[in-house]
């Protein structure tokens, strides 16, 4: 296993990671076709969020090593699983204000999820800084707000729908984001 420091993006061989490095919102991405993770360090990020992103991407590595039969929405199913894993880690950490942040966000999202109406991430969620501390960048703040929104939405979906329906709703949510 090797970390490669990409010193000069212009010298990167053309391919999937060219896009990754040129996308300003990207922190990490796993490419199962070349068994490689691209992980950017130029983006300032809260250490905990950086670590969670890496664990999320490693979940994709495990998925690639244990592939399921190809089914419709396979990529999104893998994404749901990776987020579920990431959220399980977050919940176990029992961070100060985490439960408060999630319950507040769930209350905001509840009517939209019940009535299948779209909603936006609350990018200025005041609870984000209470949970994760001071953000070193705007992108970092947005990442934190997105994690709180997604975790809350997943929890709300799980509480409102049976497991087969819940996974479909989570897939719809992720498709709407990506």
């Amino acid at each position: 296993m090797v970390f490669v420091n990409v010193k000069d993006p212009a010298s990167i061989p053309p391919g999937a990671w060219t896009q990754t490095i040129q996308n300003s919102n990207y922190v990490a991405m796993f490419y199962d076709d070349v068994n490689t993770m691209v992980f950017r360090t130029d983006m300032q990020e809260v250490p905990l969020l950086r670590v969670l992103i890496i664990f999320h991407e490693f979940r994709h590595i495990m998925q690639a090593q244990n592939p399921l039969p190809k089914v419709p929405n396979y990529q999104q199913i893998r994404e749901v699983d990776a987020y579920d894993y990431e959220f399980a880690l977050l919940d176990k950490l029992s961070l100060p204000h985490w439960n408060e942040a999630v319950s507040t966000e769930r209350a905001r999202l509840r009517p939209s999820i019940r009535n299948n109406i779209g909603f936006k991430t609350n990018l200025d969620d005041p609870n984000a800084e209470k949970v994760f501390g001071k953000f070193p960048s705007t992108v970092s703040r947005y990442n934190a707000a997105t994690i709180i929104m997604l975790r809350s939405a997943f929890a709300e979906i799980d509480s409102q729908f049976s497991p087969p329906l819940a996974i479909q709703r989570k897939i719809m949510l992720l498709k709407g984001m990506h």
Partner: protein
Amino acid sequence: MNYLATVVSFVLFLGMANGQAKGVLTPAEKAAATNCNTQANSLVRDMQNLATKVGDPFALQTVNVLRNHYCAILTNQGGVDKLAVKLSYNT
């Protein structure tokens, strides 16, 4: 925005099927590798702390895999499936 000029990233190779050690590092490459190593070690430490705190077996396994990383310099000598890297040193 002079974004590209400021990008410094890691590419984490999970398999080295086509990656090959090539040549000797230049001073600039060695400095980049040292920087890479410092940041990688910091990341592994943070991951170890989280994995230990939550006691998650997969997270602990992930950290053990990452602990055996190498830092390397990506060179423009191949396509995506035939990357050429100069290996520097492991941790």
